[in-house]
């Protein structure tokens, strides 16, 4: 009881810096999530031959959906982490606005390159495909797409520079913010809270990821403009997947700060940093960068030890996630007498979805399994699990919390229906993908064979449920924001 009242007291003194910028970002994120889901629905329906979509358009939608979703997951994660870091350190508002402006400039360039320029080389822009479209798009369109990435990347680097700078100012060093005093058992009067540990780790690995991504972007851009300039395709692929893997993972590692900061309001037990927590985050920092080789398990000319590391780290990354994050969530929830409203339900779901989605990923991370699962629908199956039921659930949970008001009440009828429908839709949707993967259906095929249509059609049905409930969550957020501001 006293813990609860203390927390409530604490809540009233925590400032809510830059809430306006963060709310605007969440509106944008919600709207783009919804739009990209509609693109996803169109692709799924096209694969099921319920509607007719020309392959060129299909691959444009695929490119927009991939880049748009990854970008929006990162954007919403960044907004969440900025918001909660603001409870512990002072961040410059101007940097966030610059970040948002560069992000939007990138979105304009990317959408233009796809829907005006016809670029459809997928969000992974695998070298040298952007320069060899077989007549589907011009070099200029590919260049615009990459400049869009560069703009977003520069925005993120500014964001992390500011975070790193302010963490350094408040905690003395990034090493201390990573919890090394806790790990070494040294006394620390001002130990970094979980949000800061997360922010320090993400700042380090995502900055490295973006810089290596920038390197391969520049090389690809030069290749587009100067045809004689060759890049080693395998090296480029390593850089691209390093960047892509780190970047999409960073989005969840940023968004999880919502769980650390919001769940305590419900359970009455603050989420504290301790030795295990710090060790887990330091392991994540290394794992997230070493695990990208699991994308290259069928590139048999890679040095074998890298593939072995890819397989091992795919599995061992599951330990901090399941034994630390998920297990701690059980402990926080158990006996907490917490109220299940939309916010708390979505946040607990997000940890579950993230952990459950890691299972098919680590199994596919085995080289022998990967031989028959790589680039089948198994892969969208596992990453949609931890994105739809993980990152996106965190973002929707955060949005519901922003408009919750002071009193916490059990979920109302409509919220409950939406929550259950979202869960059922997403779970069904990803399960179909996993079945499709096991049925050897390749991913990224615009046109499907007769034998596969049943999968696609059932998947389409589940997609409709997700799109409907997403529209509900986003509209609910916008309407309540309007009401509370007006």
């Amino acid at each position, binding site marked *: 009881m006293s813990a609860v009242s203390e927390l409530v007291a604490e809540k009233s003194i925590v400032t809510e810096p830059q809430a306006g910028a963060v709310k605007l970002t969440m509106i944008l994120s919600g709207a783009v999530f919804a739009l990209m889901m509609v693109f996803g629905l169109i692709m799924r329906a096209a694969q099921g031959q319920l509607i007719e979509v020309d392959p*060129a358009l299909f*691959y444009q939608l695929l490119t927009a959906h991939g880049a748009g979703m990854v970008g929006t997951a990162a954007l919403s994660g960044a907004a969440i982490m900025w918001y909660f870091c603001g409870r512990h350190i002072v961040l410059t508002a101007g940097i966030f606005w610059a970040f948002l402006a560069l992000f939007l400039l990138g979105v304009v360039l990317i959408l233009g390159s796809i829907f005006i320029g016809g670029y459809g080389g*997928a969000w992974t822009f*695998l070298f*040298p*495909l952007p320069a*060899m*479209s*077989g007549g*589907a798009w011009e070099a200029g369109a590919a260049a615009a797409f990459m400049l869009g990435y560069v703009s977003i990347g520069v925005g993120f680097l500014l964001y992390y520079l500011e975070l790193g700078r302010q963490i350094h100012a408040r905690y003395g060093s990034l090493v201390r913010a990573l919890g090394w005093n806790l790990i070494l058992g040294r006394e620390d009067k001002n130990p970094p809270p979980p949000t800061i540990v997360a922010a320090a780790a993400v700042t380090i690995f995502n900055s490295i990821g973006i810089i290596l991504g920038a390197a391969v972007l520049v090389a690809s851009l030069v290749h587009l403009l100067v045809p004689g300039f060759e890049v080693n*395709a*395998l090296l480029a692929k390593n850089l691209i997947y390093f960047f892509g893997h780190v970047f999409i993972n960073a989005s969840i590692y940023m968004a999880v700060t919502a769980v650390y900061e919001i769940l305590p309001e419900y359970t009455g037990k603050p989420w504290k940093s301790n030795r*295990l927590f710090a060790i887990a985050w330091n392991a994540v920092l290394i794992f997230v960068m070493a695990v990208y080789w699991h994308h*290259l398990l*069928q*590139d*048999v*000319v890679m040095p074998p030890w890298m593939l072995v590391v890819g*397989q091992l780290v795919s*599995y*061992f990354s599951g*330990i901090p996630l*399941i*034994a630390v994050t*998920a*297990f701690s969530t*059980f*402990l926080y*929830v*158990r*006996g*907490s*007498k917490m109220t*299940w409203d939309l916010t708390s339900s979505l946040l*607990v779901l997000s*940890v*579950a979805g993230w*952990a*459950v989605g890691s*299972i*098919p990923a680590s199994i596919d991370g*085995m*080289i*022998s*399994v990967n*031989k*028959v*699962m790589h*680039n089948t629908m198994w892969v969208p199956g596992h990453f949609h699990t931890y994105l739809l039921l993980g990152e996106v659930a965190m973002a929707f949970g955060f949005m519901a919390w922003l408009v919750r008001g002071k009193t916490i009440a059990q979920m109302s009828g409509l919220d409950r229906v939406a929550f259950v429908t979202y869960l059922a839709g997403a779970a069904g949707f990803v*399960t179909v993908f*996993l*079945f499709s*993967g*096991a*049925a*050897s259906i*390749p991913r990224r095929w*615009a*046109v499907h*064979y007769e034998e596969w249509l049943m999968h696609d059609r059932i998947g389409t049905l589940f997609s409709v449920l997700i799109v409907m409930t997403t529209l509900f969550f986003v509209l609910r957020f916008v309407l309540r924001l309007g009401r509370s501001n007006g």
Partner: protein
Amino acid sequence: MQPIVLLISLILMAALSLVFWLATRASNGPEPGPNANSKRAGLIWAMTIVGVVVAVGSLRPWPHALASTDDAITVSITSGQWWWDIDTVEIPAGRPINFSATTEDVTHGLGIYTSDLRLLTQVQVIPGYTTEVSYTFEEPGTYQVLCMEFCGVAHQDMVNEFEVVAVEE
């Protein structure tokens, strides 16, 4: 192999989901007891041991090992947007085949399928490199080659086939 992988994955996913569901049910129950953290330590050890056992078991023999016996046959496959060229039309059943693949343009993915569309094995085909994968066909019949790496607007049309024939000893 795929049905087993699917089954194991679904069971583990369902089990973890069940634990989460039970934890939310238990929010009204008693608080976690003092030995919760020793349970966690047990979990970490269990996951570590399972991981080591599975790793050792699944990496030996090396999954990418090529057939090196005397009766192994090499089949060369060249590829490009959007075609496969296979230098052997009739491949003998029962003998290890080393497929050796190259590309003239972008990255492709050599996926070898049965006629009823079950993926048997695959390897990435990377510009500037020759990549190899081994497979022994037990059953004569028609097999298909599908592209497994997105390679542009006609990626889904990049297919071909070959015959596996029974040989008399």
